[in-house]
């Protein structure tokens, strides 16, 4: 499947690697729920590193949609919340 890390690009990730990524994603979700900025930063970084490790960059000129989309590296909890609420993600 294709996973996009916002601000970074798309990665091809083998399905069997998803379990591990799911664990990492749970940590991110828990940190958002607890509004724990420090834990969130570390958990997000771990998740993105996980994607970079198990994934390979998807063809740059492909027009494929991603199956999953992740926040950009260095994002704060507020930014992620804004992305989930805000209308401004797609220009126009």
């Amino acid at each position, binding site marked *: 499947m294709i996973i996009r890390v*916002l601000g*970074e690009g798309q990665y091809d990730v083998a399905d069997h690697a*998803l379990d591990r990524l799911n664990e990492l994603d749970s940590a*991110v979700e828990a940190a958002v729920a607890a509004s724990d900025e420090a834990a969130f930063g570390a958990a997000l970084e771990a998740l993105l590193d996980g994607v970079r490790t198990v994934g390979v960059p998807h063809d740059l000129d492909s027009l494929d*949609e991603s199956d*999953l*989309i992740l926040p*950009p590296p260095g994002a704060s909890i507020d930014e992620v919340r804004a992305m989930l609420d805000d209308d401004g*993600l*797609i220009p126009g």
Partner: protein
Amino acid sequence: MSIMKRMSLIFRAKANKALDRAEDPRETLDYSYQRQLELLSNVRRGVADVATSRKRIELQLAQLEQQAGKLQGQAEKALQMDREDLAREALTRKSGLAGQIDDLKTQHAQLQGEEEKLVNAQQRLQAKVESFRTRKETIKATYTAAEAQTRINEAVSGIGEEMGDVGMAIQRAEDKTATMQARAGAIDELIASGALDDATSQGSGDDIARELESMSSQADVESELMRLKGLSSPGAPGAIEAGAGDTSDVVSSETPQSEGEQR
């Protein structure tokens, strides 16, 4: 996987919302392509804006570092002249600058990071726009309007995701740059007002420079006097370098030599 899933859903919903604009689906292709080109030029402008801010900070850094260097030089000179009080004052001012220099260096690194991200975003979008253009021509040439619909949707939402991503990258870079520009403006004002120059050129800080100057001119006068008296022509430049505190040593060390000449 909820964060990932929610983000994906929202992205897709927005890409699709931006999609159904034209009566003839093939017009959607041209419309989307138009927007892609606009976004490309936006991201190029974004790169240029961030680069301008980065260069401004580099300029400020150079100015502040030059000031710090000047103060360091003054401190050394003051010490040579046995004026620890002046040296301390110069070093105190220098350490005040050091904080601002560190701050600017951090901002500089952040802007460099943003610039890199935007350049990468531009490259990714460029590749996809090129690919979209080819796909667009193929779809228009090969398929009837009805058949084309699915393929158009695929192509447009595929690139719509990239466009959303790039649009966000531009937004983030703009936000960061705006904050830094405000701070850079404050430092520019500080530099222009002479508050930072004070230590070396005008206003209250003039004292160090003025005192050092008057002291070194005294030393110059002394060494010139001695030279005129024929006492120390070889030692004159050294006397200035050694500083006022050493003047007596210079005199005493050269006395035996002149005595030797007199004999």
